[in-house]
């Protein structure tokens, strides 16, 4: 693309020579000197009849029923004094259509993706000097009228053609705008983006090559680096990029002041919360020589004194740790996920109300708690289940809910219970929520280190695991053992008919598993939990979902 | 050099061509009547052809040994007559003399056409034919079937209906009954049928029933001549039957005629190849025409259209051919006559065999110009005399310089000239079911390859075969396409076909043209 700065209005010829129509096939070469002041994208002939004068009429593929429809569009373009007609290349343009275009003195061009070209042309047309000035001043005025992060970024997305903008934290958390602005894959902006509107692979490459990412650092009110305003520019040209960058810079001050009101960045807050939580739980008990919760960092203070100090710190931070509360532990379904990276997104997604307790990142998941008179495990379970189902949660999670507690001590206990319950839920799939109170002794099973047991269990249950429906059978067996052999309860818990359970039990028995021998039952129970917890029974690559 | 000959009931008309130019022409007024021989006037003579016996006629005297074959006598004359020196430059004349004749192309359509209506006892008379139809049901009106064309009715001595037939997809509608076939065959053979035309419903899509009937006929009488409608191809039971009946009726006549022509050609020095013009403006070998004489009908007009356009040096034209009473108007596109299948021929019969699209309009000298003007394509109009008697009518049209048509006046029979200029060709006409554009493309590509293969098989120069037209026309209501493929070939170096764009650069003026020895044309 040429660096030529176009000062006046663009002509069709200039759009072809320097602009987005460079890849278009031109059928009628006369009258390319027509001025183009805008773009009209038409998706039916009635829209074509309303085409704005002096605009480029871009015929969307849905309007191109055939050559006749293209000719009808040409006619409308002529009647409305359009500058040129751009059609999808899926329409076979033959001599007669070219002849018509020439008769009507209208340039006729075809492109692979008219909708995209329409956008690019809108950008190019907006990129003349006068248009640039108009656009910049309009954005500046609008920035002054918006007081939220979202509103300010929204101005860019709405007003600047071909630009997708977003405000993200340093660690990639989206604060405002459209996530698509910052979704270039790690190897740079040249790989295919998610803009799948285009057809073939070649179009992808071409599009991607023309995309450009702009980033402007936005300081917090105290002047430190806080967030980045990023923009994906789909039709970059040197002068246009400059324009977009100018607009992004204009947005910095309004963003900084809008952001100052809100607190520190979430990531910053997350690490602070974690430190505080680890301090709070520092003297927690251990189970089988293993700390249920991570030990506080070396160098952190020990003893009751420090715990009291920590409690005060928590109150200072605004944590609601007085009165009745119920703890919740969130845990990723796949334990090997990088939790540090996921934390800000999870934190942001979880929060509905700033007044509630923070979601505190821990080494193996996230902890939080519910307070108030209605902090009851059942209600909490329902609430957690709903939140886990939210599409904003970026990775599969399960959760455990503790029993009610009072004050700091109660929180500690409830948190431990929640962690145990989460361990139990972990074996059972995405969005699974377990309440410690209903788990009973199974919590012990869930707390057992599973890796070594899984090896033994695989041997023990080899016949069952060989079954094509191994996972279903294993789940049924586990539930049956959990329910002390009651097929009715098992059916309720699995949400299937009792006859289904009976059928599966028959199948399980057919695999040589003796459900009636009391001395085998515990071993079997442990083995089942171990396998479920390690995901052994799952089909390769497909995460299990309950039912 | 090439020779073209028009064979008619009233004479033999020959032309010797070199690179698309007429070197010499001879005619014998009537077969076996050697006294009517004459030579055309000198080239520079603007007088029309007819009724002017050439004073210097020594060469027209037939050699005694040629008495039996006027065709051969004519060919010899064409080769031996001294060229009229005034009409060639010194440089080209010797070359012309020494060059061998590579081909002789015959138009026998005149005799074939008259054979269809010839009375008993005529030398060339089409034989009567038995017609078998394979139909799902015996027709009620007309009872037992029938044909709308009087000539077909007169040629069919006996009719039989056999139960059977397919639809256009090739699905069997009614199973062929062996007993009904056997009974029909019995009856026809008992009636003395020597040639049988078999037309099956849906045979263009599936020929099984026709073939089974033919097999039964041949099993009973191996010497009976059987023609099957799917060989003619095309859509329409009656159209295919007409083609098949004509074919069967002409087998014998064509065989005799072709043999005579081949003998005459073989007797020439240098053993030139022997060809016959077909109704689509192409040419085929005698062997091919013996098998399918119906394609030789309407060949004369096709050849004349080619001759007139070629001599006018245009590839694209409306051509008006004048005889004493009428103008026959046709079109030439890219050097070949515009043809269609299913046309009603000059004999009033609609057949599936392609022929040139022509209109015959009876005109008087005074209205000829107006008639031509209303049909003009505004590209290039050419007028030539189809018969000597038509010269007067052609003359009556305005001159080219006055905005009238380009007049072509070779001192030769225009049909014979055109015949010499023809090239091997092929025509394929079939129905294919197609649900997808890809399926249609595949069928069309196959048909195109077959047509090109046929042109090569019919004797085209290697590599010269090309597609003239390939159309896939949607057949209404059903997902069926009618594929029509016409293939032609470029001739050898001696054809003198106008190059592409020849129409745009015609010879400038008549006098100059003749002076430069572009013989045969005059304006």
């Amino acid at each position: 693309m040429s660096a030529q700065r176009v000062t006046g209005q663009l002509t069709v010829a200039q759009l072809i020579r320097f602009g987005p129509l460079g890849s278009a096939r031109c059928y009628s070469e006369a009258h390319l000197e027509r001025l183009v002041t805008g773009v009209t994208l038409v998706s039916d002939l009635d829209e074509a009849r309303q085409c704005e004068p002096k605009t480029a009429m871009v015929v969307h593929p849905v309007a191109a029923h055939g050559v006749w429809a293209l000719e009808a569009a040409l006619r409308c373009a002529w009647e409305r004094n359009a500058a040129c007609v751009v059609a999808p290349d899926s329409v076979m343009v033959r001599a007669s259509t070219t002849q018509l275009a020439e008769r009507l003195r209208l340039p006729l061009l075809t492109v692979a993706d008219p909708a995209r070209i329409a956008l690019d042309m809108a950008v190019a047309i907006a990129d003349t000097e006068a248009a640039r000035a108009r656009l910049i001043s309009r954005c500046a005025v609008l920035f002054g009228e918006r007081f939220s992060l979202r509103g300010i970024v929204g101005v860019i997305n709405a007003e600047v053609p071909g630009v997708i903008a977003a405000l993200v934290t340093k660690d990639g958390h989206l604060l405002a705008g459209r996530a698509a602005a910052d979704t270039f894959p790690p190897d740079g902006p040249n790989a295919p983006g998610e803009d799948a509107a285009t057809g073939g692979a070649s179009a992808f490459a071409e599009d991607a090559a023309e995309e450009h990412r702009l980033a402007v650092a936005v300081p917090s009110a105290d002047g430190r680096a806080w967030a980045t305003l990023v923009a994906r520019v789909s039709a970059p040209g040197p002068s246009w990029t400059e324009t977009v960058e100018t607009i992004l810079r204009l947005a910095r001050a309004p963003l900084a002041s809008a952001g100052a009101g809100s607190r520190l960045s979430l990531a910053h807050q997350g690490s602070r919360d974690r430190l505080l939580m680890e301090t709070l739980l520092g003297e927690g008990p251990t189970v089988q020589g293993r700390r249920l919760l991570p030990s506080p960092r070396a160098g952190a203070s020990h003893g009751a004194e420090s715990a009291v100090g920590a409690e005060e710190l928590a109150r200072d931070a605004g944590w609601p740790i007085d009165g009745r509360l119920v703890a919740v532990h969130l845990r990723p379904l796949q334990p090997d996920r990088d939790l540090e990276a996921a934390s800000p997104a999870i934190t942001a997604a979880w929060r509905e109300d700033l007044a509630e307790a923070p979601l505190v990142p821990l080494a193996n998941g996230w902890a939080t708690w519910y307070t108030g008179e209605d902090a009851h495990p059942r209600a909490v379970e329902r609430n957690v289940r709903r939140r886990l189902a939210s599409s904003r949660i970026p990775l599969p999670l399960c959760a455990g809910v503790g029993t009610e507690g009072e004050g700091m001590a109660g929180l500690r206990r409830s948190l431990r219970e929640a962690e145990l319950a989460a361990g139990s839920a972990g074996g059972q799939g995405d969005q699974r929520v377990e309440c410690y109170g209903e788990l009973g002794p199974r919590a012990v099973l869930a707390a057992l280190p599973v890796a070594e047991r899984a090896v033994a269990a695989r041997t023990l249950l080899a016949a069952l695991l060989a079954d094509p429906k191994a996972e279903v059978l294993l789940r049924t067996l586990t539930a049956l053992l959990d329910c002390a052999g009651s097929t009715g309860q098992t059916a309720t818990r699995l949400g299937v008919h009792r006859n289904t359970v009976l059928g599966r039990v028959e199948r399980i028995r057919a695999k040589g598993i003796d459900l009636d021998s009391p001395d085998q039952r515990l071993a079997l129970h442990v083995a089942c939990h171990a396998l479920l917890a390690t995901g052994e029974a799952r089909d390769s690559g497909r995460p299990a979902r309950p039912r | 050099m090439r020779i073209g000959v028009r064979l008619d009931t009233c004479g033999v008309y020959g032309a010797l061509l070199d690179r698309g130019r007429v070197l010499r022409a001879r005619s014998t007024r009537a077969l076996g009547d050697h006294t009517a021989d004459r030579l055309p006037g000198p080239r520079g003579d603007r007088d029309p052809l007819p009724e002017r016996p050439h004073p210097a006629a020594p060469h027209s005297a037939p050699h005694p040994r040629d008495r039996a074959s006027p065709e051969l006598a004519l060919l010899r004359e064409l080769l031996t007559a001294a060229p009229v020196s005034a009409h060639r430059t010194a440089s080209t004349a010797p070359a012309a003399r020494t060059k061998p004749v590579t081909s002789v192309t015959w138009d026998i359509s005149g005799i074939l056409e008259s054979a269809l209506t010839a009375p008993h006892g005529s030398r060339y008379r089409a034989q009567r034919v038995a017609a078998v139809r394979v139909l799902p049901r015996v027709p009620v009106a007309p009872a037992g079937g029938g044909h709308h064309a009087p000539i077909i009715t007169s040629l069919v001595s006996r009719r039989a209906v056999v139960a059977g037939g397919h639809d256009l997809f090739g699905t069997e509608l009614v199973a062929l009954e062996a007993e009904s076939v056997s009974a029909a065959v019995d009856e026809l053979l008992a009636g003395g049928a020597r040639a049988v035309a078999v037309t099956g419903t849906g045979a263009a899509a599936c020929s099984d029933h026709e073939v089974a009937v033919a097999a039964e006929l041949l099993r009973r009488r191996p010497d009976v001549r059987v023609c099957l409608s799917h060989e003619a191809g095309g859509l329409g039971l009656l159209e295919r039957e007409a083609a098949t009946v004509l074919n069967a009726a002409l087998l014998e006549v064509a065989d005799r005629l072709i043999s005579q022509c081949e003998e005459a050609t073989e007797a020439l020095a240098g053993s030139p190849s022997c060809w016959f013009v077909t109704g689509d403006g192409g040419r085929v070998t005698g062997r091919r025409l013996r098998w399918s004489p119906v394609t030789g009908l309407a060949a004369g007009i096709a050849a004349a259209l080619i001759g007139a356009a070629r001599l006018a040096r245009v590839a694209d034209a409306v051509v008006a051919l004048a005889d004493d009473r009428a103008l026959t108007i046709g079109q030439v596109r890219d050097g070949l006559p515009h043809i269609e299948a299913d046309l009603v021929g000059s004999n009033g019969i609609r057949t599936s065999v392609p022929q040139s699209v022509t209109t015959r309009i009876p005109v008087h000298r005074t209205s000829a110009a107006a008639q031509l003007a209303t049909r003009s394509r505004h590209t290039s109009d050419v007028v030539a005399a189809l018969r000597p008697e038509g010269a007067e009518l052609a003359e009556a049209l305005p001159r080219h310089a006055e905005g009238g048509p380009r007049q072509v006046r070779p001192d030769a029979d225009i049909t014979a000239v055109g015949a010499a200029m023809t090239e091997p060709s092929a025509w394929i006409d079939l129905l294919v079911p197609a649900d997808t554009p890809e399926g249609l493309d595949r069928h069309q590509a196959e048909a195109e390859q077959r047509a090109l293969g046929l042109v090569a098989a019919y004797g085209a120069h290697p590599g010269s075969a090309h597609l003239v037209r390939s159309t896939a026309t949607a057949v209404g209501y059903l997902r069926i396409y009618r594929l029509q493929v016409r293939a032609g070939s470029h001739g050898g170096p001696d054809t003198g076909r106008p190059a592409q764009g020849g129409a745009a650069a015609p010879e400038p003026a008549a006098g100059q043209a003749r002076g430069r020895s572009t013989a045969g044309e005059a304006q």
Partner: protein
Amino acid sequence: MNGAPAPSPATGVVHRITADDLPAVVAGHALLSSGGGGIDGLTLSVAELLRRHGPVELVPLDALPPETHCAAVGLAGGFAPLLELPPGGDESVLAVRALEERTGNRLGAVVALNSAGPNALFPIAAAASLGLPLVDCDGMGRILPLINMTTYALGGLSATPLAAVSQTGETAVLDCSTARSDRLLRGIVEASGGAMLCALYPTTVGRLRGVAIEGATSRVMRVGELLTGENRHAGLLAGLARTVGARVLASGQVTALDLPTPSAGARHFPSVPTSIVVSDPSGDGPVVRLEAQNEILLALIDGAVTAAVPDVLCLLDRQRLQPVSLENVALADHVDVLVVPAAPMWHTPQGLAMAGPRAFGFPVRHPAEEVSR
């Protein structure tokens, strides 16, 4: 069966159709059907029936008592099957008898489903074989692809019960809604060879008043007389303008023939669209594009819709002065594009909804709607 009302005496007979009239009918049918192939087999059969049973009385609608039972006769299917399977001659009797048996009413008159294309001839054959008068009216005034696209249906008549007979003699009687009739019949037609003769729209003469296009058969004959008798181009065009209101939309040479991909809306029509361009090859004149699906449905001149179905669009060969059928249209043909206006009933909003361009998948307005906007 109810007693059939006696056909009225020959008062008000428009014409007695004999075999001698057939050439005119044959010539005329082609113009009102975007051309059409040779139908020699059908003509031969109808001529034989007329000779055998005597002339057919062509009567105007009001010449018959209103209670006279009648039904439409017409072929459903394609040209090509008709050529390959010419009628045996008794199909119309079989179809009418099957319908009479189903309805219990003996017919007193025959009407045409559509007096265009081969369907201009079949009602004559039916009337001749049955010894009944033929009412001079039809339900389309042209060819339309569905048997329920008629002014009969527009006026509320039911297309069914319907009896259909194939050339193989197979008979089917359909009892269904008018809306479903074409779809159901189509399956049977395709299986039976591609064309079936139908007796349908069983009704009475009284109920036909106001819903039939009157004078349809005599109109075809007048057009045919012009096409067979007039050999001057100007004279023919003037005659067609006089008799059927035909006007020349454009003249030129066929410069392109396309087989475009079918538009989405056209899927349920079993035809394959064809696009024809008529223009001046030198590139000076207007570009006329004709969009066709069996029939020419839309004419755009320089991209503007200038004529559309249900008006009849057809090509007239300027050289031969004959209609050019879509099957036979060829590149470089020199043609006039003619438009023959449809009956006023078709230009009502309901008529255009049923048989206007949008019914064929073209998202455009008929020029008549454009004017009234």
